C-alpha cells in the first residue's frame, strides 16, 4: 500500500518536473491536435516536440494542417520543446515557414561541401536569419556566452504558414566542390532515428553533439557512432556519394573524414566571427585564407604591414 502511494507520488513528482521544464501550454484541449504537437487558438501558438523518445515523431497531417490554417490569427507563434538545452551549434527542421523570434539564435542555411586548400573538408553555411523555409534543414548558432542564452529548451519562432509533414525525414542535396556532384545530404528528421551498430548509414553520418560525452563537447560537429540518435525536428549530414570514399580498403582511395569544418559566412560575405565560435564551442580550427583582426577576409596574402591572421602565422 505504502509502496503504491510512494510510486504514485514519485510519478506525479517526476511528471511535474518534466512538464515544468517547458512553459505551460494553455489550459484546456488544444484547438488542433496531431502526433508530436498541438495548436492553441487561445494564444495563437503551435507547440512542436523535439524530444528523446524512441517513438517520438512530428506528423502534421492534412486535417491538422487545415485546422491550423483555419484557426490561426495571421502570423502565429511556434514553440519547439526540446528535452535537451541548446548547445552553441544545433540544427532545426520545421513544417512551417518561419523567422527566428529568439535573439539568442541565428539561422544559417547549408550551402555546399568541399575541401579547402589544406585538404580539410569544409561545410559552408550562409547566414540567413530572415526566413526559414518549411522542410529545409537549417543550422542554428546560439550565443551561449550570454547568460540569458544558456539552458534554452524552448525555441520560439514566428510562422507565416504550416505545411503537411507526414514523411519521416526531408532531404536537402548539397553539391560537393570536390566531385561537383550532389554527394552530401542534409537530412531533416520528423521522427526519432537511432543508428544501431548494424545500421547501413553508420560511418557516413555526421551531426552536432547535443551533450558533452567523452572527448566530444556539446555543439561539436562530429562523426556519428553506433548508439547515436536524433530526435524529431533536427538535422544531420549524410554522405551518399562514391562508396569508395566511405570505407576504403585501397591505399589510394580517400576515406571520409572524422570531422568536418563548418564555415560560417555572414550576410555581408567574407566577414566571419573569429573568437566567438572558439569561445562557444571550445574548438580550435585552422583559418583558411587571410583575415584581418576584425575578421574581414582578404583576397590574398597582405603585402602591407600590420596584424593579420593567416594559415599558420600572424603576418607583421
Amino acid at each position, binding site marked *: 500500500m505504502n509502496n503504491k502511494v510512494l510510486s504514485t507520488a514519485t510519478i506525479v513528482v517526476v511528471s511535474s518536473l518534466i512538464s515544468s521544464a517547458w512553459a505551460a501550454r494553455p489550459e484546456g484541449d488544444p484547438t488542433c491536435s496531431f502526433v508530436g504537437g498541438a495548436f492553441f487558438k487561445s494564444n495563437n501558438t503551435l507547440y512542436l516536440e523535439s524530444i528523446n523518445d524512441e517513438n517520438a515523431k512530428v506528423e502534421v497531417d492534412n486535417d491538422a494542417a487545415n485546422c491550423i490554417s483555419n484557426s490561426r490569427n495571421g502570423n502565429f507563434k511556434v514553440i519547439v520543446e526540446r528535452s535537451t538545452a541548446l548547445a552553441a551549434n544545433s540544427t532545426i527542421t520545421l513544417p512551417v515557414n518561419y523567422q527566428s523570434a529568439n535573439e539568442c539564435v541565428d539561422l544559417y542555411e547549408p550551402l555546399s561541401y568541399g575541401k579547402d586548400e589544406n585538404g580539410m573538408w*569544409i561545410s559552408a553555411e550562409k547566414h540567413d536569419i530572415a526566413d526559414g523555409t518549411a522542410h529545409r534543414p537549417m543550422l542554428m548558432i546560439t550565443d551561449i556566452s550570454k547568460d540569458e542564452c544558456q539552458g534554452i529548451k524552448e525555441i520560439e519562432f514566428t510562422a507565416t504558414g504550416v505545411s503537411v509533414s507526414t514523411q519521416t525525414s526531408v532531404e536537402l542535396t548539397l553539391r560537393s566542390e570536390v566531385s561537383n556532384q550532389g554527394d552530401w545530404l542534409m537530412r531533416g528528421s520528423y521522427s526519432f532515428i537511432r543508428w544501431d551498430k548494424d545500421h547501413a548509414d553508420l560511418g557516413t553520418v555526421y551531426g552536432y553533439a547535443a551533450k558533452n*560525452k567523452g572527448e566530444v563537447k556539446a555543439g561539436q*560537429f562530429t562523426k556519428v557512432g553506433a548508439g547515436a540518435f536524433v530526435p524529431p525536428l533536427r538535422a544531420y549530414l549524410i554522405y551518399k556519394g562514391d562508396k569508395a570514399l566511405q570505407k576504403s580498403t585501397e591505399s589510394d582511395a580517400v576515406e571520409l*573524414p572524422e570531422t568536418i569544418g563548418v564555415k560560417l559566412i555572414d550576410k555581408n560575405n567574407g566577414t*566571419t566571427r*573569429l573568437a566567438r565560435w572558439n569561445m562557444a564551442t571550445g574548438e580550435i580550427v*585552422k*583559418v583558411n585564407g587571410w583575415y584581418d583582426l576584425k575578421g574581414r577576409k582578404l583576397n590574398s596574402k597582405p603585402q602591407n604591414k600590420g596584424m593579420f591572421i593567416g594559415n599558420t*602565422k*600572424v603576418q607583421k
Partner: protein
Amino acid sequence: MEKKEYKAPEMEIVDFEAQACLLAGSGVEQTNYVYDDELG
C-alpha cells in the same frame, strides 16, 4: 654630432594556428572520436 640609430624591438611572430578560430566544429588535428549520444 653622432647620429644615433634607434631600432625598435622586433615583434615576436605569434603562431596563431592553435588560436585563430574561424570554423565551428572541427579541430586542427583530425580526431578519432566517435559520438554515440544525442544529436542537437
